[in-house]
């Protein structure tokens, strides 16, 4: 295989440079597609962040005119009206989950890193890859259109939460945003699903078929393992969501006045319309939705875990602690991830016996997560840490993941969840996991692989400032939310202070909002650093971090076809500080050390994991 591929590869190399549009827009090059994903998602991150700040504004200064953006709102006098508030948090979650976190991990880094890290010249299906990016845009278009669907700017977006529970989302009249906006939202969701599906099929094929010679499964970097498992999760879970989405669309009405009733029971009177006919079950949606959306949480987390494993190892100049347990625990998370969805529905009135089983499986999913955490700490233990932005963000990831994981145990315990469910405790929890963990991982990854993308380094001082401000802002924002949750403040309340027992929480919410604003503006540092460094950053060579992965052999930025010569893999990616080489603390995957040393190293590797 390797020889034939090599010839093809060389033949391609002589090709002329593609034109501007082919290069930047309709590119089939995985690196360009990765960058497209990265830029799109970073822009969406700002959009989602702005929506979040609007939410925070309302919670800190209820019903007061909003500065700057107030004029855009349909509410009177720059006020955020209650239905607009529901739209804000719905769209915040939608944008952040479907347009930022999932695509930035799988789309941006998956695309950019997979071929480079496994030593392939591109994805298995480059055109499909391009399509997967361009299917994001119909989704973005649908989500944007949903803001206008009522014919009035920004007052008709979907308002049923990102979970879109029926009946609220199933009946056009049920809420201000349940009209065409909800239809657009569901279509957008489908497009995102199609995009993810194309990506995951591509990743699976690429990872299975196109690894460099010598790259056995257990020599793959954790990032690749994570992307592999994520792709499997997506491939299995997404069809369920897509099907559920179509069922909901049918429930909402088909052309010709036809209508199904998968989720709509009989005799509901909504907005004074005639009673509904049907025999559906709203809980069915919750089951289907969470059957996708709980694995989706791991889709949103595993790639970051993988990348952080790689970064921590490189920055500690130390092999990854317990490589195989790490892989197995990741697989365990993915496996268990499919049987824990019910923990989102403990109070939903489903059969209580399910509550017990889901509680057990949910509590047990904390185990592989714990193993991973211990291994990360083990990786850093005794390391020679490079104290830069990458390490800080990776360590931040571990720290925040611990908080997010531990707070999850409260909710896994059903009786406690009776109280905690749908309060700010949940909000705190999933932001610790999705923002605290995933985004810190992503920030680290951006800094780490930036030299590979542009051949330049990002400014480390700005990077550290960005980390410090984000870290402080983040914890200032989300840690107090645990307390809000314990104090019983429910989610999705436009004005919690209506209820006397929550009145005293206003100052805390104002503090949170101040921190959120700080955190929001800190992201401008990242964007600025990114854009500036891409043009004016310090130029570096192929391997600025002295890392081991195959991607660091390629030129920075890699040309079309990635590698000068097809790489051959001799060992795992974590041989830092190996005693086999003198004078340097890294040993790249493709370095051939001669027969003797090579075998010696191999045997040490095979025994290493059983070392006591």
């Amino acid at each position, binding site marked *: 295989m390797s020889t034939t591929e090599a010839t093809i590869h060389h033949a391609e190399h002589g090709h002329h440079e593609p034109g501007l549009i082919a290069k930047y827009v309709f590119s089939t090059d995985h690196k360009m597609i990765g960058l497209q994903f990265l830029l799109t998602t970073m822009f969406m991150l700002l959009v989602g962040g702005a929506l979040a700040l609007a939410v925070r504004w309302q919670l800190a200064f209820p019903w007061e005119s909003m500065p700057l953006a*107030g004029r855009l709102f349909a509410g009177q006098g720059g*006020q955020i009206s209650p239905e*607009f508030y529901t739209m804000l948090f719905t769209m915040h979650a939608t944008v952040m989950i479907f347009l930022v976190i999932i695509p930035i991990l799988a789309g941006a880094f998956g695309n950019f890193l997979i071929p480079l890290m496994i030593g392939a010249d591109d994805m298995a299906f480059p055109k499909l890859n391009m399509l997967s990016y361009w299917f994001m845009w119909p989704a973005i278009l649908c989500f944007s259109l949903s803001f206008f669907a009522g014919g009035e700017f920004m007052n008709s977006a979907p308002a049923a939460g990102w979970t879109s529970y029926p009946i609220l989302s199933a009946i056009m009249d049920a809420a*201000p945003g349940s009209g065409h906006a909800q239809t657009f939202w569901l279509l957008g969701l489908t497009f995102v699903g199609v995009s993810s599906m194309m990506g995951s099929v591509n990743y699976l094929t690429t990872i299975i078929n196109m690894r460099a010679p010598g790259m056995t499964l257990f020599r793959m970097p954790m990032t690749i393992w994570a992307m592999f498992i994520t792709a499997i999760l997506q491939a299995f879970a997404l069809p369920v969501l897509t099907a559920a989405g179509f069922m909901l669309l049918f429930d909402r009405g088909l052309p010709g006045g036809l209508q199904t009733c998968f989720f709509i029971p009989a005799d509901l009177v909504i*907005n*004074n319309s005639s009673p509904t006919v049907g025999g559906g079950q709203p809980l069915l949606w919750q089951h289907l939705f969470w059957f996708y959306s709980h694995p989706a949480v791991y889709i949103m987390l595993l790639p970051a875990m993988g990348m952080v494993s790689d970064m921590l190892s490189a920055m500690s100049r130390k092999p990854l602690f317990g490589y195989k347990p790490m892989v197995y625990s990741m697989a365990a998370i993915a496996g268990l991830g499919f049987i824990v969805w019910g923990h989102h529905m403990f109070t939903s009135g489903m059969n209580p016996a399910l509550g017990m089983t889901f509680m057990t499986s949910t509590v047990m999913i904390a185990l592989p997560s714990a193993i991973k955490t211990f291994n990360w700490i083990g990786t850093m233990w005794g390391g020679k840490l490079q104290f830069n932005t990458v390490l800080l963000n990776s360590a931040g990831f571990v720290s925040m993941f611990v908080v997010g994981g531990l707070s999850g145990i409260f909710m896994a315990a059903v009786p406690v969840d009776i109280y905690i469910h749908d309060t700010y405790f949940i909000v705190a929890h999933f932001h610790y996991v999705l923002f605290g963990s995933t985004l810190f991982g992503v920030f680290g990854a951006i800094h780490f692989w930036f030299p590979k993308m542009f051949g330049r380094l990002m400014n480390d001082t700005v990077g550290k400032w960005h980390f410090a401000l984000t870290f402080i802002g983040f914890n200032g924002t989300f840690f107090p939310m645990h307390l809000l949750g314990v104090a019983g403040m429910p989610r999705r309340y436009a004005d919690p202070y209506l209820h006397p027992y929550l009145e005293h929480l206003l100052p805390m919410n104002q503090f949170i909002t101040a921190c959120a604003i700080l955190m929001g503006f800190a992201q401008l540092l990242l*964007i600025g650093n990114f854009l500036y460094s891409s043009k004016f950053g310090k130029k570096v060579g192929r391997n600025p971090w002295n890392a081991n992965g195959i991607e660091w052999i390629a030129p920075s930025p890699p040309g079309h076809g990635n590698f000068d010569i097809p790489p051959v893999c001799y060992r795992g990616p974590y041989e830092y500080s190996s005693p086999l080489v003198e004078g340097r603390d890294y040993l790249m995957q493709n370095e051939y050390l001669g027969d003797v040393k090579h075998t010696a190293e191999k045997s040490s590797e095979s025994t290493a994991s059983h070392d006591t």
Partner: protein
Amino acid sequence: MSLRHTQLICILLAAPFVAGCGEQPNAAFVWSERTLSLMPEAQRGFRAEKIPGVRKWVDDNFGTPTDLLAWQRLPVNWGGFEGVVVEKPTDAPVVMIKVSFSEDVPATGETELTWLSGKAAGTAITILGFDSESSRISAELSGELPEVGDTFVLDLGHQLKQGRMVYAEHCVHCHGTSGDGDGPTAKYLNPRPRDYRLGRFKYKSTIDAARPTRDDLNRIIKHGVPGTYMPSFLLLGESETRAAVEYVRWLSMRGEFERRLSAELAGEYSTKAYKNKLRGDTTREEILAELKQVLTEDMVGIVDSSSKEIAAAWEESHDGVSGTVTSFPEEAKADESAPSGPRSFEVELDGTPREGAHQLIHVLDGKLKSRKLKVISRDAEANKLSVDFGKVGGLSDGDRFRFDPSRAIREGLIPVAPRVADSAESRDIGRKLFMSKEVKCVNCHGASGRGNGPQTHDFAKNSNDDNKLFPEPGLHDVWGNTVQPRDLTSGIYRGGRRPIDIYRRIRGGITASQMPPHGENILTDEQVWHVINYVLSIPLESK
């Protein structure tokens, strides 16, 4: 990354911030369509000559949401604490004035004080604060100091301001800032939220077009209108609810006032009429001169009469002033068996009852609780009341009573016979009446009470639009919205489910919608109760 990309992204990033900058919008009252249909000069007046237009007349008397005005002519409980100066104030740069109030007044910071009597009567000052413990007001006074005995109102209009706060928090997004029932959320709601500007309310204890009483509004806020998006605000708190009621009344008066002024000008000076006139041989100058004359000469009279009529209409629907007996003559108590006849006694009233409207008092507690007694005369100066006790003895000191709210507005809405006990026979009689040709319930509510009677399929005439037929079949209310006759099988009663609520709906009809009043000539009291017993039983049998 090309430079062009970078620039493009920067512009995209900056766009929302640029778009968001600029003038900050303030909450403002929304003008009615009719006002906006007037020619600009009629709306705004002539600034150069200082001739006010409709909008200025309204604004000058009502203010803006952030700066409300208390137009004393209107029957609104503005709120404010009346007090009196009890000690000669100390002379210092900051004057401390010892005062006393008739009620507990919480300590305040900077607020407004209006002098009612004394040298400065009629003027308002801003005080630095009121300390409730020492009962002293601190203020910086430049002119003469107030004398002992001068009276004043502290924080005039605070109830209205509180009402606005409550309204802004709970009501505005449906009912709109000016009470036009067109807040941002309104367009999603069915039925549409009430438009207060007509002064018409559906669920109340008063006849036909009479305004609702405060109690009526209070009840709606507390219990909501079941089956609509008007929820129950039971837990709002007494003072908040009261303030909201006051604000709604005030908004309604403002709306009516604006309507009337605009209506006066709409015929001649709407943009449409203006264009028509121009098409004739009238010049713009002539029209403007004419308008100026109307605005300067006629407008004052129109403002005066409109406001008085509006005030009278709302005043009519008051709940009656309550009071306490302070001193009841001894000798009358001695002989309780003898006919007591007219007696005169001293009272303390919580307000001023209107002249000529207090023929009856309701006794609220004590021995004669729930009796109605006829008032012979009232001596306002001596706070004495002369009442005919007939044969029932007398009152005691401390008894509470209430002047009967004007009976005119409740004519026919107070049952003269108690409810007929609910029984199968009664329901049967009720059902027959329900079906009968005389009472005609079935025409709208349908034979099974589902609200699908024959009239709901007919096309109705639109009285707002030259009696043209409405485009869609069904019944319409005065706001032009389709109304669905109540589905009596649902067990949901918008105006409340107490027998008296349904009694009022049947007797008084539902003003502004198509439910007609049924007077004594159609149904006797007893028959009404039979119908009610039947109606209340429909949901129990339908399933």
